[in-house]
């Protein structure tokens, strides 16, 4: 299986036409590998959300090409694109977007059942996903019986169920307090370490600090990148005494 989960090649997205057109993204190229946690930062209107929408196949690029697990999205029919999204891409939103009348396990199993997986198997996969985000024991709870942090874990479980390897998160900690938000970042981090590619849009520098790479967008262009030192020897520096 390819190591490159998401590739953007000179991707531009322009809304409107002629003199009234607005360029949301201008020739953005970016490769995100399996096991990488990448944060995207930038001021309002810099193109952060457009990048996420395009990466997830929810919108089409005006020019350039986007590959998800090696498949170019440009040539896909609407149905094929929807299938690819269900199979390969998981979304996590600021406000969770869970169905209140379903239990945690049912919420997580839903995309699998929509994909034609038998209910029993979908349920088993949902339980596995809930275990990976640390809330297996809350599988039968309804949303109003869960805290915000627990609901966001359900949303992450829904994003990864069925072994999807591209997680696109839009301000996933925005509605949570600081300590609960850290718990969510820890879950995203552990998913990346287990082999997923995580792309997180955030305006919080402290949250971006959890990522392996931080991409700065401005006026639709990537203006810089910050990559953490991968040297593991720095990790326990505080314990060197």
């Amino acid at each position, binding site marked *: 299986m390819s190591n490159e989960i998401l590739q953007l090649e000179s991707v531009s997205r322009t809304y409107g036409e002629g003199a009234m057109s607005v360029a949301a993204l201008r020739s953005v190229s970016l490769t995100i590998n399996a096991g990488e946690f990448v944060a995207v930062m930038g001021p309002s209107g810099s193109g952060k959300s457009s990048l996420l929408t395009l990466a997830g196949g929810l919108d089409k690029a005006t020019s350039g090409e986007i590959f998800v697990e090696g498949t170019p999205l440009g040539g896909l029919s609407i149905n094929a694109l929807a299938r690819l999204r269900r199979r390969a891409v998981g979304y996590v939103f600021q406000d969770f977007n869970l169905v209140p009348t379903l239990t945690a396990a049912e919420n997580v199993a839903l995309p699998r059942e929509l994909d034609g997986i038998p209910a029993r198997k979908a349920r088993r996969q949902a339980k596995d996903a809930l275990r990976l985000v640390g809330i297996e024991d809350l599988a039968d709870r309804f949303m109003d019986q869960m805290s915000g942090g627990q609901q966001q874990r359900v949303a992450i479980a829904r994003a990864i169920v069925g072994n999807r390897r591209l997680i696109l998160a839009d301000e996933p900690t925005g509605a949570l307090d600081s300590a609960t938000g850290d718990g969510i970042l820890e879950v995203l981090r552990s998913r990346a370490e287990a082999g997923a590619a995580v792309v997180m849009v955030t305006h919080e520098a402290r949250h*971006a*600090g959890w990522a392996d790479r931080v991409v700065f967008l401005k006026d639709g262009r990537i203006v810089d*990148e910050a990559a953490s030192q991968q040297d593991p020897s720095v990790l326990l520096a*505080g314990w060197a005494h």
Partner: protein
Amino acid sequence: MYTVVVRVRWGLSRRTRGLQMSIKHSLLALLAESPRYGYQLRGEFEERTGSTWPLNIGQVYTTLDRLERDALVEKEGDDGEGHVIYSITDAGRTEVMGWFAQPVAATNPPRNELAIKLALALTLADVNVSAVVQAQRTASMKLLQDYTRQRRAAATHAGTQLSGEPGTGNANDAAWLLVLDSLIFTTEAEVRWLDHCEGWMAKRAASAGTAAKPAQARATADTAVVK
């Protein structure tokens, strides 16, 4: 192992230089716990603060001399191996309890090289302020990533759970986590301030008319430059 400590210290030096570190009160606090000699005091201080602000032994002994002169500590003889043991006096205990009770005074803001640099950059015609802001933001972000990595490793070491619940490990582990948090929040504040500066410059450039003064024209040029 040692080179790692040096690297971390180097990373911190810019921020910690010029800080009015209260070595005096830190030593008194450690002596309030039990009598100790100079090297022990240095070791305890560094262990409890994760070696973030290294002390040299000369500073420790100079400070102990002053504390003795002020009757806040006294010599208790030696430990048989030539180490002079110091213990705290009643006046010393009162002093250190007063230190914990008082908020840290911040009447004189520490000199902030970055704020000075940006203030000057904004007033000079030949400096690309946006580039200065972005270069600093990238550097600060890297530092933030490194602190966050260390924080995660330290939390694992201290037994913190996946849920973010504090572990029940020893107090020194918890102290190091809090020092790391302080560094993380300070660095975050710097990045937020840089974001704020950039937003402010963009607005200023947008509101500058076509008959802009030279300074405004330059700000417009700056914000138009990407990369």
